[in-house]
């Protein structure tokens, strides 16, 4: 978590563009939230019925940990739209980005409940120490 899932019309985003968009999604999320890159998942699907495009060519749904403010979410939304526009050559008004909050306490990654925003460094240190202890 976060999970950034992009649904696009078939062929609208090439594999080369996906790689660049994923790199930008990761950079943008980490720049805005100071979260570590290891947390960021960027997945792409095509014509997925569970993510209706509603007439757009691309729909990016970002599920992020609760606690980011409106300014941070607006920056993420704007910059990720620009990234898709730039790398996939889609018109800006053909791209929808929605950010959805999920409480960190509802999510487990690496066998541990996700940290609240701002507590990532302590979480990673504790997680790595736990793994080291388990591995003997």
């Amino acid at each position: 978590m976060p999970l950034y899932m992009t649904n696009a019309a078939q062929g609208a985003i090439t594999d080369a563009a996906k790689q660049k968009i994923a790199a930008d999604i990761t950079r943008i999320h980490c720049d805005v939230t100071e979260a570590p890159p290891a947390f960021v998942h960027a997945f792409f699907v095509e014509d997925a019925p569970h993510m209706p495009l509603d007439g757009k060519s691309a729909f990016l749904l970002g599920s992020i940990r609760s606690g980011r403010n409106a300014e941070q979410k607006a920056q993420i939304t704007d910059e990720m739209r620009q990234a898709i526009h730039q790398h996939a050559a889609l018109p800006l008004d053909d791209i929808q980005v929605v950010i959805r909050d999920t409480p960190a306490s509802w999510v487990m990654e690496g066998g541990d409940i996700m940290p609240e925003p701002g507590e990532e460094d302590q979480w990673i240190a504790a997680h790595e120490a736990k793994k080291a202890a388990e591995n003997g």
Partner: protein
Amino acid sequence: MTTCNCIVQAGQISGETQAALRTRLDKFAQAKFGSPAEIGWVEIAPGSGYTASKPSTSSIVSLAANKPVEQSERIAMLEELCDIWSRETGCSLDEIVGVINDPA
């Protein structure tokens, strides 16, 4: 029905393993929420999944609880859920994201 959405990387989980997971997830949903699992299964095509900007090996399994869940109970459920996934697929816990959502 308990909605259970699974997102996996294509080619990572065989049909046989997927069938075993579906059975285990259904039993999990019945035991925890008293209703069978309605499983959504999404495969991310090669070249379409990235974690930390690198090709991803991560799976996401997300359940929608039909009642608010106490946090201590949620942690136990998530540990069991991730353990099921790890045992059936052979994935490490670092490759599994488990989510149990409260009702909206």
